[in-house]
């Protein structure tokens, strides 16, 4: 079970949060065209390794968090605010 250290509420069980998926894909500008939007909405890197993802703390502060989590070990390297710049740990292997 994940325990996510919310910067506002402290360490909380995963059931308090709502997952919102990959946080690395930037929403294309209006008018960027279909291919850009198709890639944005559907394509995912889906890495085995560090993954940057959105979690909304619905049962706590209701803030949106950007969590850097390892998809195999589930280790959490960082929990950031949406506007924070990313510091991604190095992906091991290829």
């Amino acid at each position, binding site marked *: 079970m994940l325990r996510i250290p919310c910067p506002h509420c402290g360490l909380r069980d995963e059931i308090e949060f709502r997952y919102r998926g990959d946080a690395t894909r930037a929403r294309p500008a209006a008018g960027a065209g279909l291919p850009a939007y198709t890639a944005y909405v559907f394509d995912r890197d889906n890495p*085995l390794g560090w993954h940057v993802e959105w979690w909304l703390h619905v049962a706590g502060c209701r803030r949106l968090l950007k969590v850097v989590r390892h998809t*195999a070990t589930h280790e959490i390297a960082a929990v950031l605010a949406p506007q924070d710049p990313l510091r991604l740990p190095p992906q091991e292997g290829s």
Partner: protein
Amino acid sequence: MSETPTPPAPMAPPERASSGRYSLGRLLYEGLTGQRGWTRAWAKPEPRARYRVVIVGGGGHGLATAYYLATHFGVRDVAVLERGPIGLGNVGRNTTIVRSNYFLPENIAFYEFSLKLWEGLEQALNFNAMVSQRGALNLFHTEAQRDLLTRRANQMRLLGVDNEALSPGDVKSLVPLVDLDNGRFPVLGGFLQRRGGTVRHDAVAWGYARGASAAGVDIIEHCEVTGMRREGGRVTGVETRRGFVGADCVCLAVAGHSSRLAAMADVTLPIETHVLQAFVSEAVKPLIDVVVTYGAGHFYVSQSDKGGLVFGGTIDGYNTYGQRGTLPVAEEVAASAVTLLPALARLRVLRQWGGVMDMTMDGSPIISQLPPAGLVMNGGWCYGGFKAIPAGGFTTAHLIARGEPHPLAAHLSLARFAAGRTMDEHGIGPFPYAH
């Protein structure tokens, strides 16, 4: 979309299996001679330098694709490369439910084709996979659910696929342990597909492997694919832990690892990898005779022939490659179980595990040519690809051998996302973690 076709017959009967035919007579003979005569169910050859077709992934779909290529499409120069032992991926860890009760007519036809193939599989493979058409029951608890399932059943019946509506009383007599009232979401009825049921999961992998091996396919275990070689925009083979293996066509059948393999050819897929968990209880004498799916929470259950209740719930809901079980899902699944079947309260759960699945953005699979020439994929099976193994293997073999999609799988192309032809059974949208 019209009625589903009947399964085709093999081009030529498979070559005599190297492991010999399995039969009662042989069992008796071996019993008298100390079981000395049994040999490997599938050969364990060294990889050759090149094959016409290399299939990556020795799970259900990879092995079935190889089997049908060799037995139905005359393509025998085939290798299946599996990073570990075959059959320990999702095919070896699922809740074994087979059925064809889907919403979208294209999907019904595809899964019905699969069900028809299941129905003759053991005889074709000469391997008892315990295809058990014990019936798959979906319960409903609200009128809105009833309406949706009515729509589904009517759609299935239009296509000639069996499905019938059950009253609460019918449900009770089929599954006496069900608490129709259950205090919160009473059972208002059910829909039963009698031809649905379960299949012994491991036997599916082993049976297809044995059949494919006998037909000339090389099944190469402990041979992880680590890279993809391309020349002039065309995939020409794969790098493996045991060296390079060339191929005219590389087919990915790696389930939860589809994104990683596709990335080796610079393809990004509309897929996220999520864990689905399953559980088994202690073995007890017969309790539940059909597959039961609860409609007010995440829980479905059947009883294995060994006596354990095999059951599961929903995905954890966040990307993961960890094949682990978690507590919140266990709590939710058990709470659903005790609510629907309160008699289970004192039965003990024995084991909990997980499998990593390729969840697509619309919840339907992908059987498709990928952008680089020479690369094909069978994947995106989400949590429902076990039942699809025969049809997935057959239609993928068709795509490889004929160079064009099988009509029953044409709707599963990768292009559907950009085109706006997504196959979203439940209308959930591009949120794989919510499918």
